[in-house]
């Protein structure tokens, strides 16, 4: 796939400045101003509101199989999710996901 090089560099620069500004915002600029309760209440959910919706299509219709649902990838996702939630650990999620992926692929040939 050919990528638009200009777009990639703009994305990198924009993310670098934007992310740094977010991290610096209150510490460097806004100081001791309290964030209002309603803002905090929504900010708490930014990551869990975006990331699941972003990956759901990648799990259901993975690019590696040309968009066909794949039992190994589905089971790997379930295993990673289950272990991640149960152990509250990212490492457990990654390892159980990868092990399930390779085990099911091996068993199904």
């Amino acid at each position, binding site marked *: 796939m050919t990528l638009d090089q200009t777009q990639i560099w703009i994305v990198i620069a924009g*993310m670098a400045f934007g992310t740094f500004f977010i991290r610096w915002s*209150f510490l460097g600029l806004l100081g001791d101003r309290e964030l209002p309760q309603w803002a905090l209440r929504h900010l708490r959910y930014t990551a*869990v*509101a*975006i990331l699941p919706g972003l990956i759901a299509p990648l799990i259901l219709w993975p690019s590696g199989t040309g968009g066909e649902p794949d039992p190994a990838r589905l089971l790997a996702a379930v295993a990673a999710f289950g272990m991640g939630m149960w152990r509250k650990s990212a490492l457990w999620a990654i390892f159980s996901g990868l092990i399930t992926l390779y085990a099911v692929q091996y068993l199904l040939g």
Partner: protein
Amino acid sequence: MTSEQTISKSAFWEGYRDCAPFILVAAPFGLMFGVAASELGLSLIQTMTMTVLVIAGAAQFTALILIEEHAPTLIILATALAVNLRMAMYSAALVPYLGKARGRTKLLLAYFNVDQTFGVASVRLPLETQWTVAQRSAYFIGGGLAITPFWIFSTYLGAAFGAAIPPEFSLDFAMPICFIAIIAPALRTLPHVLAAATSVFAALALSWIPFSLGLLIAAAIAMVVGAQAELWLERRKS
């Protein structure tokens, strides 16, 4: 060396030690990001520039997915930065402890204000009531210097050698697994679970909207669901 420098030095190493276990979490994500970026076709210099300047795995993966989907630049930036908005909350929470640091020091503190350093510091700093601002800063920067070099180096390994991994290893799926690894442990409360479920269903239902804009709308709905669920639980308790 003055005595104050000695004290700051020991706070630095305490920060380093407290954050060191999280190298184990950061390194696999860095590795996977490097692999995913090189699979997508980013050059080594692009991958490394992003990883050094952004140091935020979830947002970096988000950008990769949206670049692959040919989303417009503005949508990619808006979505990736929305993923990082939680760090504004970190920044605000650090003000009582680090707000009095010097301007230049604060630039460094902001650079290192990532999930792990903040998580560790937000537990330790409130306990150390005797620490000076210099010690608190040293502690925070120590944590950042524990994790960041490994994050950068593991990204490099993934980007430089990921292409040599054969397709049988299904590395296209490394990215979804990484995301699951970020999301699953974060589902601590019912509102988090409801927000995540809303995100999935709304994103799938709105995927017909062009320019990957459906995801941002789904995310806004999911945030409101999370916040409202939290309010509802609070009211029920009281």
